């Protein structure tokens, strides 16, 4: 049969957006896949070098459009490590709760994208609605729905508004009570199982070698989660499990995502329970116009919704970062792993596999 070259994306329903893949196909089979990043390069890492330590926290969230919160977190963690700032206890709990809400919101958004792409429109609409409920919480806490600009170096920007704990509980109950419906219509739907099982498979060894993190590696059976390995914020203050699966295929990955979402809901309840009822939510940082962070370098990491997110940040003792470099999960997932797992799959499953790898293009192009 004839070998053909096929362009997949960026304008394609199965594509995550500003990203494309060049496929070499023979009939329906993919012989080789080449990922093409770069559609969304905005030069953030360079921009960071031109803004003061404080001016950067409204900027970094934009690196990952879908889940800005962990970007805020990792930047602040990096600055705190360089400057030797300790976040107050209540601030740590709020950060954890906030980031878990972000995880729930982000997973719902992922669920929307996945189900929408496969034509499960009902599920997609539910997921979008439920995500909106999470955004309502963010709006109330931070004043914005998407770019929350909430985690600042030193802690968080504002304390919970009055009655906010109850609202979180109520919203999470609403979402949680719909899980059986999601199961019935999507996760345990035989149509979906048929489409997602045994595609995009990867073994634990391969995953490790190619720098897989997050669901990509947890779906191969490895309990790899930075929140456990190197606990930050308040993740060591409560009990929680790391969901895993064994098969390493698209279906396992989406189930890990679902289980994580449920685990996050439970974790938020526990965090709310244990959180100190009063206290500062941030540590004072120096005057933003004069703040010079001591020279040095730091590497910090956290577990974003997509996996390990790292930041290497350098200060030369000046009022701006000398260099900042992000290690984002979508980078290895969207480039190396995607190329590898697409080999031998059918064209119809490209979007499916891509979604299960949970790639978000803006994270790749910084």
């Amino acid at each position, binding site marked *: 049969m004839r070998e053909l070259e096929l362009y997949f994306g960026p304008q394609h329903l199965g594509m995550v957006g500003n990203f494309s893949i060049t496929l070499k196909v023979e009939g329906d089979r993919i012989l080789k896949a080449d990922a093409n990043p770069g559609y969304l390069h905005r030069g953030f890492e360079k921009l960071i070098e031109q803004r003061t330590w404080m001016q950067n926290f*409204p900027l970094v969230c934009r690196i990952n459009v879908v889940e800005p919160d962990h970007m805020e977190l990792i930047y602040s963690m990096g600055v705190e490590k360089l400057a030797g700032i300790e976040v107050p206890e209540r601030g740590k709990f709020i950060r954890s709760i906030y980031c878990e809400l972000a995880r729930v919101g982000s997973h719902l958004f992922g669920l929307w994208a996945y189900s929408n792409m496969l034509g499960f429109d*009902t599920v997609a609409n539910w997921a979008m609605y439920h995500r909106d409920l999470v955004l309502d919480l963010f709006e109330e806490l931070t*004043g914005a729905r998407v770019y929350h600009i909430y985690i600042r170096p030193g802690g968080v920007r504002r304390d919970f*508004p009055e009655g906010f704990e109850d609202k979180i509980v109520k919203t999470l109950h609403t979402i949680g009570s719909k899980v059986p419906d999601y199961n019935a*219509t999507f996760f*345990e739907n035989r149509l979906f199982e048929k489409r997602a099982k045994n595609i995009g498979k990867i073994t634990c060894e391969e995953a490790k070698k190619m720098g897989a993190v997050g669901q990509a590696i947890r779906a191969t059976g490895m309990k790899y989660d930075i929140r456990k390995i190197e606990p930050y914020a308040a993740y060591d203050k409560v009990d929680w499990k790391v969901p895993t699966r064994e098969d390493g295929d698209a279906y396992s990955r989406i189930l890990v995502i679902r289980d994580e979402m449920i685990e996050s809901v439970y974790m938020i309840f526990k965090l709310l329970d244990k959180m100190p009822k009063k206290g500062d939510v941030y540590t*004072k940082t120096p005057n933003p116009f004069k703040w010079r962070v001591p020279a040095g370098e730091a590497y910090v990491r956290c577990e974003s919704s997509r996996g390990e997110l790292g930041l290497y940040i350098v200060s030369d003792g000046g009022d701006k970062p000398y260099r900042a470099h992000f290690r984002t999960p979508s980078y290895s997932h969207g480039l190396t792993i995607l190329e590898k797992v697409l080999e031998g799959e059918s064209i119809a499953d490209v979007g499916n596999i891509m979604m299960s790898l949970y790639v978000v293009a803006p994270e790749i192009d910084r």
Partner: protein
Amino acid sequence: MSKTSFLNPFKAIKYLFEKPKTLRYPFELKEPAKRYRGFHLNDWDKCTGCGNCADICPNEAIEMIKIPEIEANLAEGRKNERPQIDYGRCCFCGLCVDICPPGSLTLTRDYLHIHFDTNTFKFIPKDEKLDKATFVPTEEYSVLKASLSHRKQDYQGFSPELEYALFEPERVKMPQIPPEKRKLSFIEQVIGYNKDEAKQEAGRCLECKLCEDACPAHLKISEYIDAIYRDKPKESLEKIYEDNPIPSICGRICMKHCEDACSLRIRGDALAIRWLKRYAADQIKNFKEELEIHPGKPTGKKIGIIGAGPSGLSLAYFLRLQGHKAIVYDELSGGGGAIRIGPPKYRLPLEAIDKDVNYIESLGVEFKFNTKVGRDIKFEEMLNDNDAVFIGIGNTVSFSTRVKNSEKCILALDFLKDNKIGKQRKVGKEVIVIGGGNVAMDVARETIRLQHIQYPGEKVITKTVSLEDWDELPATEEEVEEAKEEDVQFNPAWGPKEVVLDDSGNIKGLLCRKVKSVFNEQGRFSPTFYEDKTKFLTGDMIIEAIGQRADFSFLPDELSDKLEFTERRKVKVDENGMTSIPKVFAGGDIVNINLDAVTAIADAKVAAQGIDKFLKRQQQIISKDVIGPKSLESKKYNGKESVDD
């Protein structure tokens, strides 16, 4: 996972019977959260125009725009600039709200602006008070008209909360000797910041420079404060010396007009600018060895200066930097003038004064102390010997109340002078100080100390009596508070009527009458009294501290007649600091109405420029006369006149 029925997904059908979740926009609107970060509001009355919002904005979305209708008040730290937001750039982060010192800037819950003209995205926010047409009640609001000029009333969102502000509103506490201890001796009350405290306090400065506009001498405050923050006290002090050559003095007793303008004062404490200046000056132990300030190239000109007070000292310094020779005459045995005798040792020790004076002397200024112009040297002689003369004599003669028996009272300046540089005065056990200004506070607080020294362990009383009531006392709040802490008693709104003597002619007390008003309708000083309401204050000693005037007796009659005064009895000077007598310049308390050191420095700066200009003009006149034609010759180029000049 166990296989489920393929009918399972049809459970979703039940959702058909639920109410829809979507809103029918624009007929149905979602109410944004209380903290929503939408368009800005700015309370123009509170906004100082400091520009901190523009400086912090990560997107350079804010530009400060001059608003002609707003009247600037630089002394109070208010500019007539207000922020303009470019909504094409703004990311609604709200950093501007969190940095705004007065908290005038707020975000609202409005976020809709629909317009064909992109220029309308540049917007100068106001608030409902000022912009009634834009902010309509909810009933009248229509989303179809939603824009920056059609917004809802009372719709604040993300607001400035001091607790979360990006600046530090609280001042680093200045360590001081407690009142119980300090009133027993003349020990310097303020201890001064240590390095960490100074750096921390300096770190509060937002660099908006409102203070620099308010300072009469326009010191480069934000720069010298930043140098302290960076732990470079020498750099800081050299910056100070560009505009103020008496930092050890001003770092202690400056009237700190700058702090009245500091934008941090509005919701917190003003930056401790004065104490930081003192820190810089105290850090450098030996000015002469450490500072790199050099006199200018000699010009051969000589200026005579009368009075080694702040204006005279500063002028001498500035003239030296220009290369002129300066000779300062003063009747006292050391420099400082009124400041040498006035401020008590617990506020301004002599060592601090001498440190500044000695440094000025080391730059080549000649001092002739113990020399009173008019007595030891004739003014006319000075005028002849020098290329210009500067009068900075200050107000040296105390006023008396001139009530009955007032000749038995002591005058404030004599009292202060003896205690500071002469022999300590003997005081009574119950002393009355007449006056409510800073000098009266100095006198009262000194008296308390002398009483404790002279009558240890005994009951002693010092009381002040002033025409002004509490709210109009001319003394600074700080002075009044500290006097109270030291147990000085106050009798505000009482005016002296008569000094009462006993049979042997000793003071028994002061008869006072209640004050009706101190100022007349035009705001002029013109006290009126209730003659029937009197009060007798007992006391065995009375000190009058009700003001001072200048002594011009050194001027020969023909010049004295020529010297013009303003309506407020101040020596009239032109924009160059020159009086109505040619070649004679003046500054300090005899010229300005602030009557303080830093204004005297400002006068000196003006006079230094003025004198320099004056001397250069003289030079030109001379050179034109003598070598004029020649110099013109040299300007010719290729036989043509050069075009400039």
